[in-house]
């Protein structure tokens, strides 16, 4: 083959989108075989993402020309639909691939009822396809569509066990999502009305700051913050993530929330970048500190295993908000934020999967009555602990490297003369202690003296996948250089 990687890249991008849609459609029209389509498809999709990332790294050494834009059907922007791949979307695609594969394998064991299977797999494959499209979309309207695909399949997945708690959690989740989507859509409409384009790159070139842009920024950001459960718009998260089936919780906390955050980041690095002022940055940072403290406090009080994990998501996303004022001082810090989000997603998904295994074995997730199960299931508790160490930000894990980079960014603001930097640094450092507190609450009962009871049998997938993913989350500590390098291949970003 004489073709260069750069020449093959557009084909590979379209191929990935086509593959994810094909799997979703195939599973929908052939539900009896949906679990087979999903199982093999997950491996195929992850392989495709790996190939794509290899091509991308081989093709794009120059940061300015690294974005590959593909016009579907040959229609260029502003008329046509553009696919857009750069370092940022590539990194998150790989994350989605890894977590998606782990979740799929886990679900092979978790969802075994034939009826539930037929409902679960098509929805999950649509969710995955939606995430892939979200990460590859280059214009605001397309982003909206894929965001909707993600949200609706997520709502259905939360509800799919059909229990009263699940349905009420799903209803609340749906209302929040509709509200968020509407708010986002209104912002898109405002921008389109003003500039007549939807493509993000074109928008960025045309944006001058006026009242319309401000309004659009507020609407779109608020809508996304609602979906990303960023403080103070987080209240819906714990009930929804806590009551969903384990693989769904893992995807919601690991990927869906991260997807919304990705969009916020994209918009504020692109069209809305001129709106970010230091005062605004400090406000966002203070919200982050509040999220960290409040989420951790709830996690330290909660009596149920899965809601501890869910509240920990609220707390951990506080770091992402704290990073906002840091980005205003050192604009390169956005890469730190993305790396943090990636390792958080890996660790959080594995904690949720481990919690799901324990819940399945025990038949409930009341922490006070789980001692015997925790003592008997050392492997799962080990996975929980290892991923928990990553959440605390201790070595040898990805969380440690992320925490290192965050602390470095925080200390740089102090060295640059910002007094409030002391608050950011203490929050970043102290958050690790709070995380240690709630991780210990989950792990410590395994070390108490007392009876042991393995509970209900679980499939080997549910036994081993959480451990595997936890190991990946730990090994992400060695991927720091590669990830940061990939992220520099994002045009327009500092």
């Amino acid at each position, binding site marked *: 083959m004489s073709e260069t990687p750069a020449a093959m890249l557009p084909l590979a991008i379209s191929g990935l989108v086509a593959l994810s849609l094909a799997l979703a459609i195939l599973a929908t029209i052939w539900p009896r075989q949906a679990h087979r389509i999903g199982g093999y498809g997950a491996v195929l999709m992850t392989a495709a993402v790996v190939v794509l990332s290899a091509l991308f790294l081989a093709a794009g050494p120059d940061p300015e020309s690294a974005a590959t834009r593909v016009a579907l059907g040959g229609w260029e922007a502003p008329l046509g639909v553009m696919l857009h791949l750069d370092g940022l979307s590539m990194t998150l695609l790989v994350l989605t691939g890894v977590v998606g594969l782990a979740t799929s394998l886990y679900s092979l064991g978790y969802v075994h009822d034939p009826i539930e299977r037929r409902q679960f797999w098509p929805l999950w494959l649509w969710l995955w396809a939606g995430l892939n499209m979200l990460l590859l979309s280059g214009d605001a309207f397309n982003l909206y569509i894929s965001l909707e695909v993600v949200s609706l399949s997520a709502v259905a997945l939360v509800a799919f066990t059909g229990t009263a708690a699940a349905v009420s959690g799903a209803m609340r989740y749906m209302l929040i999502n509709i509200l968020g989507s509407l708010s986002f859509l209104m912002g898109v409409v405002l921008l389109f009305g003003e500039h007549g384009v939807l493509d993000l790159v074109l928008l960025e070139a045309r944006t001058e700051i006026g009242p319309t842009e401000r309004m659009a920024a507020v609407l779109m950001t608020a809508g996304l913050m609602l979906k990303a459960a960023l403080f103070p718009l987080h209240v819906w998260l714990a009930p929804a993530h806590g009551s969903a089936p384990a693989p769904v919780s893992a995807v919601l906390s690991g990927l869906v929330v991260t997807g919304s955050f990705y969009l916020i980041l994209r918009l504020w690095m692109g069209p809305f970048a001129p709106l970010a002022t230091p005062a605004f940055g400090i406000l966002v940072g203070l919200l982050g500190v509040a999220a960290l403290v409040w989420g951790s406090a709830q996690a330290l009080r909660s009596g149920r295993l899965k809601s501890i994990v869910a509240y920990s998501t609220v707390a951990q996303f506080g770091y992402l908000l704290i990073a906002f004022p840091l980005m205003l001082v050192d604009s390169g810090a956005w890469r730190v934020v993305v790396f943090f989000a990636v390792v958080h997603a890996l660790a959080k998904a594995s904690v949720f999967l481990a919690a799901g295994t324990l819940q399945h074995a025990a038949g409930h997730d009341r922490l006070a009555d789980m001692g015997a199960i925790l003592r008997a299931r*050392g*492997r799962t508790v*080990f996975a929980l602990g290892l991923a928990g*160490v990553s959440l*605390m930000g*201790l*070595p*040898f894990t990805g969380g*440690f*490297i992320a*925490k*290192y*980079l965050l*602390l*470095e960014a925080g*200390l*740089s603001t102090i*060295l640059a003369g910002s007094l409030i930097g002391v608050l950011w*640094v203490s929050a970043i*450092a*102290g958050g*690790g*202690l709070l995380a*240690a507190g709630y991780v*210990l609450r989950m792990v*410590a009962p395994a*070390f*108490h*003296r*007392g009876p042991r009871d393995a509970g209900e049998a679980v499939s080997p997938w549910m036994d081993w996948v959480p451990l595997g993913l936890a190991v990946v989350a730990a090994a992400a*500590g*060695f991927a*720091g*250089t590669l990830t*940061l*390098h990939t992220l520099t291949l994002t045009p327009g970003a500092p």
Partner: protein
Amino acid sequence: MTDGGWLLLAILMSSLGPGLAIFFLPERRYGLRTLLNLGGAGTKLVLVGWLLLGVLRGDEYQLSIPLLPGIDFVLAADALSLLFATLSAVLWFVTTVYAIGYLEGSPRRSRFFGFFSLCVSATVGIALSGNLITLLIFYELLTLATWPLVVHRGTPAALRAGRLYLAYTLTSGLVLFTAIVWLTLLAGAESFVPGGYLGELATTHETTLKVLFVMLMIGFGVKAALVPLHSWLPIAMVAPAPVSALLHAVAVVKAGAFGIVRVVNDVYGAEVTMELGLAAGLVVVAAITILYGSIQALRTDDLKQRLAFSTVSQVSYIVLGVALAGPLGVIGGLVHLVHQGITKITLFFCAGNFAETLGIHKISELDGVGRRMPLTMLAFTLGALGMIGLPPLAGFVTKWHLGLGALEAQFHWVLAVLIVSSLLNAAYFLPPVIRGWLGERRTSWHERMVEHSGPTRFETHWMLLVPTMFVAALSLLGGLLAGMSLSPLDWVTLIVERDYSIPGFAP
């Protein structure tokens, strides 16, 4: 990566590999687990010996893996690393044998030995770290690997001790983490180098460096149990005896002390430390810790708790010697890293033997134990006399050099501290020895071990007795043969000549 780098990696893996494998072994695979344990410990011993000879010849060993742009994960071996690595490799082997005997028949041994091996891997990682960030990684790993050992018994007291241990070590770890990131921002992620790498910063960033030094000392001081950061140590003695031995003699407190040595010698450099007035402050803290630990030890009747407070006191000799910053003081401090290790591990093994065999936990119960368990009591006596610092035992070599070092560095009052502390040592170590040999037992012994597992050929299980006698012999030989080549004293002298920068004393 140089060829020698693989050796460093192999040393790390020799405990990490078996440790991870042991986690997945079923409880009943006693033979395979023992094979993995002893195989790993033996391999490590051989590899460290090989490295020791290499370093003696002057070979360079280094391995560096990029972690982040500009920041590497560096393993390196100098004479100072070898001092700590050899200590931990030898004592790990001994403690493994002891632990196998100690835990015979008790539940959850796979988990125990898994974390035990992780703990030793972290310790040897600390010894072989080539820069502050690598040191931090292994230091925090050590915290995490030790917690399951402290709470191993699962009793409420053990869990409470575990919580306290984590509260202290994780908090101080975060202070350390912040300080290291800050220092790296200022000075870059340099490798350790004798004399330090702060150079120009000492004049331009004086206050910052002082603050950072205090933060680093808080970070390492918690594990080294410097007063007032020591409270976790006496409470953590609820752990099983081999764990206490590991905490007190090999891993945890030593990691703290070793970190302080690295900061003073290889980051700040003795010269900057003295110029900024930091060395004098450290001398004062160490002196207070020495006296405070001894006084607290006097007040307790629990044998293991008395040993724990004695550790608080004794580990500060290391800090004291390093802070004195003259060649003799440094020799005294560094050699105590080894001497305190072998002596204290002897005492903890003896305490474990008494508790396991006869159920003795208090000093007031020791009356006449010398007749029932003469060998253990002999080992205990050697350990106690070594701690007091009687010639020709190992502790004497330390105190002699420290005393000379204090005079050399013009800290005359430190000599008084050393004398008072030796008297206090005698006051709390002689009563158990006297009770053991000369006391009278009126009732018959509560033969705990015989009740549980039948009669033993020796005074206690041979896997408890042999390691105890071995380390007791080491603490005797450490003093007797201090003049021989490759004795701890000889090696420390080599360190001071080769890898230590002492202002005004060119080697």
